C-alpha cells in the first residue's frame, strides 16, 4: 500500500509548479439535498474546476457549523442520507478523477457508529477511540478517500485514530484555528500528513464578507513550525477571497457558499449551478459572464 497522503503531495506539488493560484476544494455534503443528486453535483464540481474534495457526513448536532450547514444536514438526514451516502460520493469523485485528493469530513459520533455496525466487539464501552474507528477507516479507504477530518477529535485525543487511519493508507487531517497556541500548532505539525486545515476565523462555518484580518499572522505562526501544505476554510465564499488567501496558502476550501448555491438553485439546475459557481470561484470564468 502507498503511504498516506500521496495524492495530496502530488496535487500540491503540481499546483506549485503551475503557479496558477490555489487549489480549490469544494465541501460537498453527502446526501444534500438528496442522496440521488449527490453524484451529479460531484461530477459538476469537477467540471467546474474542483481540484479535490471534502465530502461532508451529515450529523444531527454539528456544533462547529453555522445555520447553512445545520439546515443542509437536517435536509440530508431527512432525505435518508447516511455515512454510506457520503462514501458513495467519495466513490463517484474517485471514479471521475483518479488523482483528486478526497477527504471525508464529519463529526466523531457517526464515524464511531461505522465500526460498531460491522464489528460488535467495538460496542465494548471500555475501548479507546481509535478502535471503533477501524470500521470507518476500512470503508473510507475502500471508497477511495485519501484522508479523514474529524471536527471534534482534537490532536490531544487523536493518536490511536491516526494510527488506525494510517494502517488503511489514510491521512488524519488536523484542524488549526486562530486560537491555537504555538504548543498546539507544534503538536499538529509533528503528526500531520496530507495537509493541515486552517480555520480562517474564530467562529463556526458560514460565508463571510471578508477574510479575517488576522489570517495572515495566523498563517505565519503555522508556517514557522511546519512545511506541511496548508489549506484554508471557513468563511471563504468569493473569487476575491480565494485570490487573497491564495497568496498565503496553496489551497482553499469552499463550504457554506457552495451549499447555499445548491440550496437556492431550482431543482434540475443544481448541477449546472455548482459547475458555474466553481468556474467563477476558481477564476476559470469571470464574474460578469456568470451573471
Amino acid at each position, binding site marked *: 500500500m502507498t503511504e498516506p497522503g500521496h495524492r495530496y503531495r502530488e496535487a500540491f506539488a503540481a499546483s506549485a509548479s503551475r503557479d496558477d493560484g490555489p487549489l480549490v476544494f469544494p465541501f460537498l455534503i453527502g446526501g444534500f439535498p438528496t442522496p440521488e443528486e449527490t453524484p451529479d453535483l460531484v461530477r459538476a464540481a469537477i467540471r467546474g474546476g474542483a481540484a479535490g474534495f471534502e465530502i461532508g457526513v451529515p450529523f444531527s*448536532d454539528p456544533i462547529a457549523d453555522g445555520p447553512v450547514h445545520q439546515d443542509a444536514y437536517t435536509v440530508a438526514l431527512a432525505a435518508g442520507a447516511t455515512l454510506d451516502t457520503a462514501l458513495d460520493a467519495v466513490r463517484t469523485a474517485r471514479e471521475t478523477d483518479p488523482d483528486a485528493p478526497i477527504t471525508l469530513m464529519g463529526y466523531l459520533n457517526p464515524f464511531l457508529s461505522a465500526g460498531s455496525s460491522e464489528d460488535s466487539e467495538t460496542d465494548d464501552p471500555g475501548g479507546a477511540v481509535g478502535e471503533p474507528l477501524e470500521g470507518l477507516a476500512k470503508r473510507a479507504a475502500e471508497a477511495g478517500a485519501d484522508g479523514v477530518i474529524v471536527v471534534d477529535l482534537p490532536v*490531544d485525543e487523536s493518536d490511536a485514530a491516526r494510527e488506525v487511519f494510517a494502517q488503511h493508507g489514510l491521512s488524519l487531517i488536523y484542524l488549526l484555528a486562530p486560537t491555537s497556541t504555538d504548543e498546539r500548532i507544534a503538536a499538529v505539525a509533528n503528526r500531520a500528513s496530507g495537509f493541515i486545515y486552517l480555520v480562517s476565523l474564530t467562529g463556526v462555518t458560514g460565508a463571510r464578507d471578508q477574510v479575517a484580518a488576522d489570517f495572515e499572522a495566523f498563517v505565519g505562526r503555522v508556517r514557522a513550525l511546519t512545511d506541511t501544505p496548508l489549506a484554508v476554510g471557513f468563511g471563504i465564499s468569493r473569487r476575491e477571497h480565494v485570490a487573497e488567501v491564495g497568496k498565503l496558502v496553496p489551497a482553499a476550501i469552499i463550504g457554506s457558499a457552495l451549499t447555499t448555491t445548491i440550496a437556492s438553485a431550482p431543482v434540475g439546475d443544481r448541477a449546472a449551478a455548482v459547475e458555474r459557481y466553481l468556474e467563477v470561484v476558481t477564476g476559470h470564468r469571470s464574474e460578469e459572464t456568470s451573471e
Partner: protein
Amino acid sequence: MTRESGAFGPFGGQFAPETLMPALAELEEAWAEAQGDPQFRAELDEMLRDYVGRETPLTHAARLSEQLGGAQIWLKREDLAHTGAHKINNALGQVLLARRMGKPRIIAETGAGQHGVATATACARFGIECIVYMGEEDVRRQALNVFRMGLLGAEVVPVKSGARTLKDAINEAIRDWVTNVRTTHYLIGSAIGPHPYPVIVRELQSCIGREARDQLHEKIGKLPDVAIACVGGGSNAIGLFHPLIDDPVRLIGVEAAGEGLDARHAATLSAGSPGVLHGTRSYVLQDEHGQITEAHSISAGLDYPGVGPEHAWLMLTERAEYVSVTDEEALDGLKLLSETEGIIPALETAHAIAYAAKIAPQMSPDETILLGLSGRGDKDVEIVRDALESREH
C-alpha cells in the same frame, strides 16, 4: 499533549473543535489555581452561606415514610436554596471562576430554566453580561422562568434548531462560544461537556452530599442505606453521590422514562449506548448511524439525550445503579410529596420521589433513604395542571 482518555475510565475526554481547545486548557488551569487559593474558597463559601442560604436543611419526611410503610426518607432541601434549585451552587462557583479569568461575558444553556435563572442571578450579583440559550419548546413550557431571567437582566435567546429543547440549546451555546471564546465563559449547567467541566460541576455540587452526610450523621448517627437523585445531565446526582462514594451506601440515579422505554424517553443510561456528544464520551441516545435521537420527558430539565460521563463510569463499574420512571409516575410522585409533606417538588425531582416510593416499602423502618430534593415545583405548576387535567379525560 496526549490525553486519549477521559477523567472517568473510558468516559469523559475533550472531543471539542480545535478553536475551543485552548479555552478548555485555560479553564482547567484557572480551576486548578482557584482550588489551591484559600481566598477563592472563602469567597465562594461566604456567597453560599450569605447569599444562597447554605447549608440547606435536611428534612425528615415523616408522613411520607409512614405512608409508604418502610424506610425512613430524608430530604436534602436544595429547593430552599436561592432561586429554588441546586443549580445556583454551580452557577455561582463558575461566575467567580469567570471573574478570575477576566471574562466579561457569560453564556449558558437552559432546559427547565432553572440553570438559566441561576446563571442570570449570579451574573446580576456581579454585574456580568449574561446570555442564555433556550430551546423554543422550553421557552414555551417554562414561560415563568423566561420572564424571571429577563427581570434579572439576562438576554434569553430562543433556539429553533432540532427538537428545540436542551440539546439544541447546548449546541447553540457551544457555537456562540466558538465565535466569542476570547471574551466569553461558557457556564455549562450540568456535569456534562468536555473536560474539565464534569469535574468542576461535580466539585461545585458536592456541597449537597457533604452537608447531607454530616447532617444525617448528626441526626441519626449513621450513613444512609440508599441515596437517590434524579439524573438529567447528572449534576445534582453526582453532587449527592460523590461524597458518599467510598461509603457502603447504595447509590441510585433516576432517569426519565418519558412515555416508556419502548416509546419516547430520556433514559440515556438505562436505554442508550456509548457515544460522543457535546464534547464528552459517555452514553447517548442514538440511532444505528450515530445520529443523536430526540429525548422526551415531561420535565424539561431531564429532556436530554446525553448524560455526564462520570455516571457512565459509575454504571460501568457498578458503583451506582440507574433506573427510570415514566412521566405518569413522576406526576404521582409530585402529588405524593405535595400531599404528605407540604412540599411541591420540581418535576425533575419528582422522578426521584417516584422511585423512592417504589423501594421504600420493601425496606425496613430502621433503614434510611437520603433523597436529593433538587428543586421546587413552582415553575412546573402549569404543566402539572395540564397533565393532570388531560389525565382525567
